[in-house]
């Protein structure tokens, strides 16, 4: 874990206060900076400013790197995605000031240690299937280039690894499928969302897959391809 530097806001790890401050969300900004742990708008803004150059309204890639380092999380960590979801960030690699403020108020964090304390909570969000679905859907818009309708396959593969890598047994097969079928240069939102549904409802042996179902053609083709692959490897082994 990278070392923590720079200033810490007062009352970094005040456990009991946490609950209290959550309840007092709305009033906290008015109360101004409190010594212990209450959320402070100004502190929060200045924390944001640490990662931006002066006139920038946006926290950019460089700032992001530093931010990750500060809170001790690798940029590739899925927690960052949960955080971005919390902040409702529009673009990967960027946080705008509004996003920052809104999300941090929501989390009641105005300094690094507070946020570090929240990391576990953010991680836990990923275990809730409804929230995960919403994060998954968010990830598409988050990861795609602005003004683009679809996600290019490379990014999509990386995002899928991040999100489903641990939990979907067919994930690596699917990546392989995308590698081999180069005509799929992009994934649209429908395909993206369907992958999650597919990973959740279809058994790894594909036994409950219905080819007349509503799966996008990409997934139909994936199943066809996978069956062929499995058939081949089966033949080889036997």
């Amino acid at each position, binding site marked *: 874990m990278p070392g923590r530097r720079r200033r810490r806001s007062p009352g970094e790890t005040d456990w009991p206060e946490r609950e209290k401050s959550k309840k007092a969300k709305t009033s906290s900004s008015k109360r101004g900076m409190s010594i212990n742990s209450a959320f402070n708008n100004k502190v929060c803004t200045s924390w944001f400013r640490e990662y931006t150059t002066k006139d920038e309204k946006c926290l950019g890639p460089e700032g992001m790197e530093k931010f990750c380092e500060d809170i001790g999380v690798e940029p590739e960590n899925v927690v960052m995605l949960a955080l971005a979801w919390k902040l409702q960030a529009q673009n990967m690699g960027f946080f705008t000031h509004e996003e920052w403020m809104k999300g941090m108020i929501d989390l009641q964090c105005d300094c690094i240690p507070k946020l570090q304390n929240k990391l576990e909570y953010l991680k836990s969000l990923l275990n809730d299937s409804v929230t995960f*679905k919403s994060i998954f*859907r968010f990830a598409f818009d988050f990861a795609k280039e602005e003004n683009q*309708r*679809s996600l290019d396959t490379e990014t999509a593969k990386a995002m899928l690894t991040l999100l489903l890598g641990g939990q979907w047994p067919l994930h690596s097969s699917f990546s392989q499928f995308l590698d081999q079928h180069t005509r799929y240069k992009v994934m*649209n*939102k*429908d*395909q993206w*969302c*369907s992958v999650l*549904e597919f990973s959740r409802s279809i058994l790894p042996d594909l036994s409950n897959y219905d080819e*007349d*179902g*509503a*799966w*996008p*053609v990409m997934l*139909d083709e994936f199943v066809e391809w996978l069956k062929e692959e499995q058939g081949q490897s089966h033949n080889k082994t036997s």
Partner: protein
Amino acid sequence: MPLSSANKRALSEENKGEPALTSKRSRTESKNRELDEPESCATMTEPQKKANFSALSGNGISRHASPLANAKPGAAKKLVIKNFKEKPQIPENFEEQTWLKLAEAVGAIQRSCAIRYSLEELYQAVENMCSYKMAAGLYQQLQSACMKHVRANLQQFLGDTYDHEQFLKMMSNCWQAHCRQMIMIRSIFLFLDRTYVLQTSSILSIWDMGLDLFRTHIISHRTVEARTVDGLLNLIERERAGETVNRQLLKNLLRMLTDLQIYQEAFEKKFLEATERLYSAEGQRLMQERDVPEYLAHVDKRLNEENERLLHYLDSSTKKPLISCVEKQLLEQHLAQILQKGLTQLLDENRIADLTLMNQLFSRVKDGLKELCTAFSSYIKNTGRLIVVNPSNDAEKDKDMVQNLLDFKDKLDNIIEVCFAQNPKFVNAMKEAFENFINQRQNKPAELIAKYVDSKLRAGNKEATEEELEKLLDKIMVLFRFIHGKDVFEAFYKKDLAKRLLVGKSASVDAEKSMLSKLKQECGGGFTSKLEGMFKDMELSKDIVLAFKQHQQYLDASQAIDLTVNILTMGYWPTYPPCEVLLPSEMVYLQEVFKKFYLGKHSGRKLQWQPTLGHCVLKAEFNSFGVRKELQVSLFQTLCLLLFNENNEYTYQEIKTATGIEDSELRRTLQSLACGKARVLHKTPKGKDVEDGDKFQFNDEFKHKLYRIKINQIQMKETQEENTSTTERVFHDRQYQVDAAIVRIMKMRKTLTHNLLISELYNQLKFPVKPADLKKRIESLIDREYMERDKDNPNTYHYVA
């Protein structure tokens, strides 16, 4: 028996003489009494009359006659006349005497000799005996006399030396004699039959007694019955085997069995069993030996024979079981085999008579027509598939496909009409089968039908008169109706129609219009609107050109060139790839003049010239002979030829630069001018193909017997290419149709599951589509945000307004 009362009875009857008559007449009397006198005259002949009557054994009369015993003495009051007459006595041994007399007569009848007494006397005797209450005894005595005689007859049938026929003859004779005798006896004993017997329910009438005696004593004897039935069956079997037998004998004996009421149990059952055995074996054997038409003819023959048999000697009650037995054994058992073995052959060879027979026979048995119909349908499917499917895409075979289909359809229509009596089941089966097989191969049949129509509508097709053409078009429409992908037809039809219209090659405007109206009727106005637009364009162009020729600038510019323009509305016509060529300046000028003229009338439009579709007539002078000719050529050919006004020789490259015609097009054009039938150019070196370095010279010595010569373009190899592009365009259009259908459905339903949407789509779309293609369109619409997938249920779509 108390005599006194018998006496009284006899007296009163003697007095009246004709009591039977009186009672019988009582009804008429009441109606009109004046007839009284002549009626009493009739009395005299009455007994005779009565005897005659009874011989005919009219039973109804005896009913009326019976009440005579207790006739009311109402009338007698008036006629109290003959008093004081002595009571007549009957002789002491009256009963024995009379019976002896009667017994002798019966014996004589049974021996077939003359009877000593007159019949009237005998009848009277019977009547008297009955009157004196001796009826019961008389009946018994008569019965035993008959029984004795019948028993005596039995012996002759028990000997074992006879063959069947002889035996049957004997039986028949015996029976007939018996009947004759019994009739005679009954006539004599009629009075007994009508009074005593009728009033006593426990005994049989004399005739029935005779039958009963014959039945119990002769026929029911086991040997006799067996011999008789065997004999009969044997005789019938011989007849079935083709021998001529004594049908009269059969008829008599079977009638006998019916009369004796043992026809059913003694004969019919065995007969049906024998029939079943015979025909079951015959069916098995002949199915193996004979081919189907022969077999069917045989079955028909058998059925006729059996019907005849029924007519001639079998009892009519046997008809149903017998015929159904024959049908079952000869047909029903073999339906599948007959169809499998013979139907294809019969249909292939168009054997109308045999098929008619088959239909007739099959309609007799249960499920017969259904089976026939199914087999018929699968025959059509198989044969049709052979015509349609062409895995190697052999052009030769495809060329004849439509004609073959039309012939095939004609043949089947005829068969259905003549052989299957226009049975709607068969008509439907045929339609279904056609639809099935014709769509086994996608797109190609539609394309070929379109091309076939083109070949018929094109000028120079002089093989048919207007009516024949009209009829042919109707037939084609029938085929067209079966096609699923009608848009493919439209695309190809449109392309060909464009060619016909632009080159002016259409055989007849009427035929074109009629075809168009047929299509409109079949597929609706939407289908034909573009085709109609093409016709409209042609007409408008004519007017415009006419107006243009009055136009001042044209008059100035047109010293040498006569210009006709067809203005094609984009979208109505097939799309032609734009192409640029270098036109001679006169032409360019004229084009400009026209353009100005046209845009002056219709501002805001855009004119694009299509050099590929142009054609020209050139006046040419071949100097060495001083011959003038007119050459009918395409615009490209024109451009090449016009060059030779300047110079006598050009290289390929020079021509290419001068005309700007695209390479492969130019090669074909030059080929047509220098290597075709009418060679107006020379090529060096000689050869079929045009190479880069080739040189072309004007052929000064060109000769041709005609004045106006049409130089055909070398037919483009690109038909294949053109073909593919047409097909592709069709598929492209289909995508829009699918999209439109999806949006239409979703707009109406707002939310729909995948499967419902797909099935709705299949209902709406008139061409074949794969589910995967539909899915792609759905995804594309989701992507374009016309609809969205439900967040929680990926199988459900929502319409996005």
